[in-house]
């Protein structure tokens, strides 16, 4: 069961430049105004994780891809995280729309190592993501 929403080519291009040319640190995606396509709404090279979190609106849903860098066993590692941001305070219509469209976007990206469903800021806090990133590279 899916919404049938499509993924725009801009999404793919943005993801490619994050993954391959590492131009972006993160990309934030949303739905187009007509609710028919998923489009990137922001790309950023900002290194500060908190800035990224700040870019996720308090009561609206988004998707994000974040090139997460962390240290494990004193080696630097990178993992691309796919974050579904669906705050509890978002309208139910948005939640439904985003949840049922998520798979289309998620499956267009290869190389996602960590997937996170975030409903409040604690779930997408740096430590929470770090925990997931760490545990997924056991």
């Amino acid at each position, binding site marked *: 069961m899916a*919404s*049938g929403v499509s993924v725009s080519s801009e999404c793919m291009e943005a993801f490619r430049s994050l993954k391959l040319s590492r131009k972006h640190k993160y990309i934030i995606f949303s739905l187009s105004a007509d*609710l028919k396509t998923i489009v990137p709404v922001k790309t950023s090279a900002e290194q500060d994780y908190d800035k990224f979190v700040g870019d996720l609106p308090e009561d609206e849903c988004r998707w994000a891809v974040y090139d997460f860098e962390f240290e494990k066993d004193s080696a630097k590692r990178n993992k691309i995280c796919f974050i579904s941001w669906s*705050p509890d305070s978002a309208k*139910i219509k948005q939640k439904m*729309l985003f*949840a049922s469209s998520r798979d289309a976007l998620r499956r267009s990206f290869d190389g996602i190592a960590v997937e996170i469903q975030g409903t409040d800021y604690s779930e997408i806090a740096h430590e929470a993501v770090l925990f997931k990133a760490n545990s997924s590279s056991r």
Partner: protein
Amino acid sequence: MVNYGGDEVSALVVDIGSSSVRAGYAGDDTPKAVVSSYYGYKTTAGDSDAKLYLGQHGPSIWREGMEIGNPWRDALIFDFNPIPPLISHALSDIMHANPSEHPILVTEPAWNIAANRERMAEIMFEEFQVPAFYIANTGVLNAFAAGKGSALVIDVGHSVASITPVVDGFVLRKGLVYSALPKLVHAHAKHVLTTPTPTRGSIDLYPHQLIASKIPVEPSASPRFALREDRLAGTTESWRTWYETREVDEWIQTVAGVLDQGWNEQVAAARPPRQYEFPTGFNTSFGPERFQVGEEFFYHSPQLVAQNPNLPKNIPTLLSESLRACDPDLRQVLMGNVVLTGGGSLYTGFADRLENELSRNFSHVKIHAPGNPIERKYGAWLGGSILASLGTFHQLWISREEWQEHGKAIVGQRCK
């Protein structure tokens, strides 16, 4: 909006539960029609086309010799005969909509069987002549409506409590568990009411339809009422069961609760009692016993278990069964995304208790329980309403042509 014949037409969304049929236009926030799934009928001539008494003027109106029926049995639609009249009543009589002009999305429980969903498609296409049809899983709809692609959906309904693991929008059928737990809770409540206590006698559960007159009495005093003797003889057994069920439900919804920290006599006694008046005029305040009722969701005493080998499984048992059937890798994700839904979960303290039960065994538990009772009661309908209102969703509809071309097989293929 769906483009049909040049005009934009809203899809219809129908969610058939064991207590009520919810129907409305896709895109709306609440169902336009909420019709009781119980229907009245008379077995006079024995002909199958006998008139059904539906909705507001259905079971709740006393009729001599009227029996009460319900299409559901053992968590599935068992009798499809009353389904078209029920749907027609909701769509045509209440909403004044013409089903043949609207695509229709119907919900189904996660454990629905292929024969049932195909039958439903058949009813829609053949009897209602709908242009397009889709059948959506309530578990997935509830997960999506909570904004989650993966979730553990705990749905406590009128007669079934279920736990549905959903991963990437798919139900994991092996982890799907359900039981008639709400019925047990209901039976317990009835037992509480009809068993005399030191302070009161057994409580009569007569409905207002059978009461001719009553005189106000002091709290806990014996009720003073007169029965409609003229009606007693014509009252069927099934109608009596139905109204007693309703009276008990009413009481449960007003009074019953769950202790959030588990059973504790002192805590239960310390909670403020609640006043309740029955149709007979009997009124009293209910103390600890109102929490005993909700306790049945989470804990069954060893004696009860010993006496009833087929006791419906309680929530913790269902949970551990469900999780055991899920891959160990998934458990953490599921526990972090528990969705509580269903009208039966609206007991005071239910969500807190659930959280406590879960936190005892898992770290990082997060429960999503909409505070808005509409969302909790009509979660699946709302999810379907939003989904069916999407322009992009029309790719998924099973069109009339497809139905005619492929027949029943298309339902299973399209609605995975």
